């Protein structure tokens, strides 16, 4: 079908990674994910990566968005594109026998999306606006963006992920950004439930193999982290949040375990925390964030002070090592892309050093960073 008949010359060296795992080999479905180092941190304009992600699976030179959806549903598959600070991820879940179709579908998105002007106005724009509306209605999400801004300022990681219209983005900007990030050096291909040999062959025969060459824009060095503070007045529940940056690879396992510790009953004040998250970037840096949420600003203040006091006093987080391993294993199992393995041997005690702070809601009643 589709690409099998075409014979393109095989390159001796493939510049992109292709990894298949047969972990779910017995299951009748497979997942294909193409991960592009093209997330919000790499875009020159705020929200550019978000708009590009929303343009994925729109019309291409081969077929319209309508035809792609209609063909895909008859084959039993679902397509999704998501964006975060590091990656744009294109993902397809489908019945195994359709692997070549989905390799080609994603390839033509990367290679020849049409970027039609009416799609920006009619599909991409409203969908992006909806994403933003959902995110801004959640004070924890608002606090997360504020924490990144407080920690990394206007360097890549400090930028907002979602398009909010503050900076003007044109169709040409999106096209140029696509040309910059959708290159052979900048993508990785992962699949679960398929044979690596099949995957490599189909990818080799697809347009992915003729993607233009560019330069890898992956940023491996840890950006400078600040002990900043951001306060956002807003209606609704109050959130006070603290972020702890990992500025070297060595700090990452410690923060992974701290995350597991704070989110489990091992930590006496775990109930006070609404959410604890850790994002790791390139395996060399990352940000742990924790959020206290509540309708009552004084309770939120008291709780965040208690949590920060505990962290400053030092916590014995070693008992949470195994829990962190289970969490990592579960995350790896649920994800189409590989999750880093943890080296937890050295983790023992945690004492708070540099941290950033954000407050969302009735900020008059919420504490300042230097009061924690």
């Amino acid at each position, binding site marked *: 079908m589709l690409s099998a008949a075409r014979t393109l010359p095989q390159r001796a060296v493939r510049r992109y990674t292709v990894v298949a*795992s*047969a*972990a*779910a*080999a*017995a*299951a*009748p*479905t497979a997942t294909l994910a193409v991960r592009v180092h093209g997330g919000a941190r790499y875009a020159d304009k705020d929200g550019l990566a978000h708009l590009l992600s*929303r343009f994925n*699976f*729109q019309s291409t030179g081969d077929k319209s*968005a*309508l035809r792609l*959806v*209609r063909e895909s*549903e*008859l*084959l*039993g*598959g*679902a*397509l999704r594109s998501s964006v975060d600070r590091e990656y744009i991820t294109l993902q397809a*879940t*489908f*019945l*195994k*026998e359709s692997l070549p179709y989905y390799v080609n579908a994603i390839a033509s998105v990367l290679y020849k999306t049409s970027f039609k002007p009416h799609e920006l106005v009619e*599909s*991409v724009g*409203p*969908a992006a606006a*909806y994403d933003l509306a959902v995110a801004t209605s959640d004070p924890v999400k608002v606090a997360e963006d504020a924490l990144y801004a407080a920690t990394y300022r206007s360097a890549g990681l400090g930028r907002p992920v979602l398009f909010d219209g503050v900076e003007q983005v044109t169709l040409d900007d999106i096209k140029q950004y696509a040309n910059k990030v959708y290159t052979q050096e900048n993508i990785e291909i992962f699949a679960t*439930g*398929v*044979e690596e040999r*099949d995957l490599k062959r189909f990818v080799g025969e697809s347009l992915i193999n003729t993607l233009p060459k560019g330069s890898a824009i992956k940023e491996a060095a840890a950006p400078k982290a600040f002990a900043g503070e951001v306060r956002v007045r807003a209606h609704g529940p109050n959130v006070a949040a603290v972020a702890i940056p990992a500025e070297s690879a060595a700090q990452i396992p410690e923060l992974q375990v701290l995350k597991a510790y704070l989110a*489990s*009953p*091992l930590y006496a004040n*775990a*109930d006070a925390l609404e959410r604890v998250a850790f994002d790791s970037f390139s395996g060399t840096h990352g940000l742990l964030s924790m959020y206290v949420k509540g309708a009552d600003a004084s309770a939120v203040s008291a709780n965040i002070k208690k949590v920060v006091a505990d962290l400053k006093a030092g916590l014995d987080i070693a*008992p*949470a*090592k*195994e*829990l962190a*391993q*289970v*969490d990592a*294993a*579960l995350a*790896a*199992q*649920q994800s189409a892309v590989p999750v880093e393995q943890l080296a937890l041997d050295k983790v023992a005690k945690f004492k708070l050093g540099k941290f950033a702070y954000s407050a969302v809601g009735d900020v008059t009643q919420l504490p300042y960073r230097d009061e924690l």
Partner: protein
Amino acid sequence: MLRTTTARLARRSLATHAGAAASAGRLEITELSNGLTVASEHNPAAATASVGVVYSAGSTAENPYNNGVSNLWATYFGHGSSAVQAAAAKQGLRLSANVARESQAFTVQALPGDASKALGFLQQHLLAKESLSDSDFAAVQKTALAQLEEFEDSNHAERVLEHLHATAFQNTPLALPTRGTLETVESLIPQDMQSFAAQQFHAKNATVVATGNVAHDELVKAVEAQVSLNAKSGAAAAASAPAKSSFLGSEVRLRDDTLPSAWISLAVEGESQTSPDYLTAAVAASIFGSYVAAEPASRLQGIKLLDDIQEYHLADSFVHYSKSYRDTGLWGFSTQISNVSGIDDMIHFTLKQWNRLSISITDTELERGKALLKLKLGNANIQRAADAALLGAEVVQNGGRYLNTAETFKKIDALTVSDIKKWAGNRLWDQDIAIAGAGQIEDLLDYMRMRNDMSMMRW
């Protein structure tokens, strides 16, 4: 202890290759002589092991006076920062518990190789537990009440489904909400948990399930060595089985104009778990599928109903379902509507599309429905590897009938347009409906107006 029977249902892969993982994901069931069943799907490539116990007693095993008691057991085991959770965290175990209408599951997720530790934990903290101390009970009750309040305030779609069951199966066991209500949970006492456990948590009612990286033989050995449940005689077990549930066309309206939208669910009587038409009903629901107005790709789906909906933005989202229980089921759809003056149109056009299932559904629509159902069943396979509770639900509720995906896919492929038309003619055309609505539902027409849309005078 002797193993009496061993049933092995080999699972065939649909993939174009065989080899390394040929043995992965095979369901194996062993019945122990004390009545306990052990079921597992072994996947040697999995990074985790999930072990749990599933009782074939959910909210239908409760009564209006102890409704919510299963929820308390689930809260005790799976939620909050109780002593059980803390003990599990120290050993590197993740706990979860959930209550369905006809089963409840308590599961432990661990690293591969820790299956026996997980089993020991289950035995110590759940199976050997007959009652809670008064202080533990108070803490559990408080957590459960807080969760219930949160549920009532914010999860309107699920709340409407609970009320749909309450009205459709009124005065029969399926009517009881799985979480209980604020009133019933508040009135429970420790004795209720104890007597419910004594009556329902016995070997004949229990299945030990495992998925992920757990070998079946080792699991069976570990269960024999570590697990002991109170054995109850067959007669006593039968006496505690719930009464038969039956469907009644009816409605319940929870109008609240302070909410931003309307949430509505409407259903006919569906297929029971043992019905030969189980898959036909599932394919029929999959033909109409689901829709989210905010997703561009969702707007392009090949569902005829969308032509009517999109022009006037009649709905923000909808999802069709086919739910099956022991004696009966529900087949219908749930929708969220922010354009509240269009509720009557939304219901009308949806039911007119349902009419088409009996008279003019096309081959393409059927093929689309089949493909999406297969995708859903295939994905469930992968999710089960990380959560034994999902395997438990399939084994306890569906008897493992649809676990052999290759076989199930063959049955789905064999369905034809005339099968769907025949099914819809019997189960959908001119049948009574149950309706539940919450939020701004002023425009939800009266029962007979909607009931009349279940058939038409022309075709």
